[in-house]
């Protein structure tokens, strides 16, 4: 029984990670109706940034600054840089195709994703970069509930993830920017006619979504310890799954979807075998898409004839 709950906790933690990535992905889809295939690769860039910050400050076993400060710098830098990268990609690759048929930005996104992966390969090489988290965050510090242990990194991921999600929810529903985002997502032309600066809103959405992905990347580095240029691809796929299962364009949907995928993955790895994990997650997506294409919390799109 303890095993069950341990896997559950692990699953929720990874789920929080997937949710963050799925959130950014869903936000971007909401305003642009674009499946940003490069989103997972932004997560990868964030993970690399976190790694290099650690190296810059002395390396995992010889840090020159206190750990909390290190973490703050890692997260903030990843958020800002990856956010900026997202804005640049939007400006350069997607904006010219705003009014093109959907196939065009989709293929461009694939190109951007491929380019990012290989740029990382060129710049950083193929070998895995190791965070060595236990060297600076002791795994023994954590909490123990019965036979279930939740270590410090997991707690941090959970807390930060939930805080970010709540923060984002508030931003979208309470602030002016959030209202603009929702308006652009509903009807871009009408929003423009109502005086909303659509370009700016879309850029802001990209910044936020990409920043979330960057933060998730750092978390992934801390949790999974290894970073390489291909982690973005699989993570991106899982984020798609999460966003689509939950209902693309829906923020609570992305959160729910991420959680489901994380927990499902955890249980499959724990109870069946890790070789089948990806396969079963993909199969899960295909089934959900066939049964309920708009996802669990999504809304069907109507077409005026």
């Amino acid at each position: 029984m303890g095993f069950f709950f341990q896997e559950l906790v692990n699953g929720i933690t990874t789920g929080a990670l997937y949710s963050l990535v799925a959130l950014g992905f869903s936000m971007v889809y909401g305003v642009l109706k674009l499946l940003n295939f490069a989103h997972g690769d932004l997560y990868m860039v964030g993970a690399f940034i976190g790694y290099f910050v650690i190296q810059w400050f002395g390396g995992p076993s010889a840090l020159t600054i206190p750990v909390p400060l290190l973490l703050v710098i890692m997260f903030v830098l990843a958020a800002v840089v990856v956010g900026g990268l997202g804005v640049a990609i939007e400006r350069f690759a997607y904006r010219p195709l705003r009014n093109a048929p959907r196939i065009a930005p989709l293929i461009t996104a694939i190109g951007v994703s491929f380019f990012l992966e290989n740029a990382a390969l060129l710049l950083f090489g193929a070998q895995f970069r190791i965070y060595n988290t236990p060297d600076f965050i002791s795994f023994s510090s954590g909490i123990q509930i019965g036979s279930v242990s939740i270590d410090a990194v997991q707690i941090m991921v959970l807390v930060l993830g939930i805080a970010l999600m709540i923060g984002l929810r508030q931003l979208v529903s309470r602030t002016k920017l959030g209202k603009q985002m929702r308006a652009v997502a509903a009807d871009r032309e009408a929003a423009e006619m109502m005086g909303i600066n659509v370009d700016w809103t879309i850029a802001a959405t990209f910044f936020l979504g990409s920043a979330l992905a960057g933060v998730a990347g750092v978390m992934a580095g801390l949790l999974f310890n290894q970073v390489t240029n291909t982690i973005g691809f699989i993570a991106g796929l899982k984020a798609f799954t999460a966003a689509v299962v939950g209902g693309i364009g829906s923020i609570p949907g992305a959160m729910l979807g991420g959680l489901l995928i994380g927990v499902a993955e955890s249980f499959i790895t724990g109870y069946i075998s890790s070789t089948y994990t990806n396969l079963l997650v993909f199969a899960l997506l295909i089934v959900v898409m066939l049964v309920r294409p708009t996802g669990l919390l999504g809304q069907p799109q109507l077409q005026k004839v």
Partner: protein
Amino acid sequence: MSTEPQPPGTAGPQVGVDEWVARQAHRREYLPSWLGGAQRLLERIGWWPRLAIAGLAGALLPVLGLGGFQLQVGIDSLVLVLLALGLNVVVGWTGLLDLGYIAFFGFGAYGFALLSSNQLGSHGIHLPAYLSLPIVMAGTAIVGLLVGLPSRRLIGDYLAIVTLFFGEAFVEFTNNVAPSKLGGPNGIVGIDTINAFGHQITTNEGYFYLLLVIVVLTMAVLRRLEGSRTGRGWRAVREDPLAAASMTIPVDRVKLMAFASGAMIAGLAGSIFAAQQISVFPPDFDTPYLILVYAGLVLGGAGSIAGSVTGMLVVMVIYDGVLRSPTDAGYIFYGLILLTLVAKLRPWRRLGIVLAATAVLGFAAHAIAGALSASAVAGGPQSTGWIADALRDWVIVPANPQTPGNYGFVLLVCLLIALVQLTDRWRTILLVPTIYLASFVWETRLIAEPSVTRQLMIGAILIVMMNARPQGLLGARRVEALT
């Protein structure tokens, strides 16, 4: 372009007004300047004669000296051309974004492998090719139907996701499931070669000609389909599925037929691939190959048979040329830059100024850097051949090129993004340092890692083509209704 509406009964179209305008619009469809002239000339020849000429040219290649390694490249190219042709049916004609297309290729390859090797049963099934090929093609077509079933309810983006996942699931499947039957990560080896009309095809030449014949036949078949009821049905479904349905077209059935046809072609390609390689491994059918096929289709022009073939061949020349030798890679890189400049920079005077300024900048920078620090220019250009010799005193290559090259790469991407945003005079001015920086990055980093560089080029092709010329080199410009 519209005629003044005239009361019925008066004189009809005014030659010189309607027809001339229509012809002008038609002219703009072609590639700019002399390339367009060449296109028009080719069009006068007629499609079937052109096919014959292309086929003959291909047949002469091995005779004229394509040998050894290059022949293998030729074979790989033809396999990919076949895939591009099949993908064109699904994406180009019917407008279904199938991101798992490579899985049909894999299915065909694995299917053929299982039927033609020791893998199944005690001694394996060793079906002769004239049996296994049709079986595999039919089987792949059925798989295509199955994958296409979601297309009835899913449109556009959703279909793309589901097919992408199917493609990924295929790789995971062949990697992990039933390793004793499917070989797991070690794949299947020891596949029979193809026996065609009594000849056992064992040489690369043989496979090259076999593939050439298949490609030509496939192009002929597709051409017939294009102008037929089926082809019109496919294209109507791409244009407007609802209107198509209202015009008697059974949209779901038409989509399924597209999936099945595309899959069947991919299955055929996979079978020949498996026979020629004598082995199949899961990574052969992973996403990078899918992206390669898409790059070929996008570059050449989705929706056009000739475009699919041409685009794929050009992509393969780049993809493989970069890998072959630093000299060849240099030709491709600098050739592409010069080509873009020549095509885009007008008037000629501007082009001359930019080239001259870049040269001057380079020599000056090199001299200054050399004077400041010897190690800054100690490394020579990492490419070889006469280009490298010419550039030795022009491009700065430090003793340890890696780190400066990396920074240069990032800076180059930023500059390119900036270039796109600027216009006119500032763009021309910024072009000069950008070209120099590009050469720097090439000589320090890109040439040293050709396998990564060629992937970068593929990604760049997709991005640039979609933004600059979405209809590809030979495709027709499309007009989309605003929804």
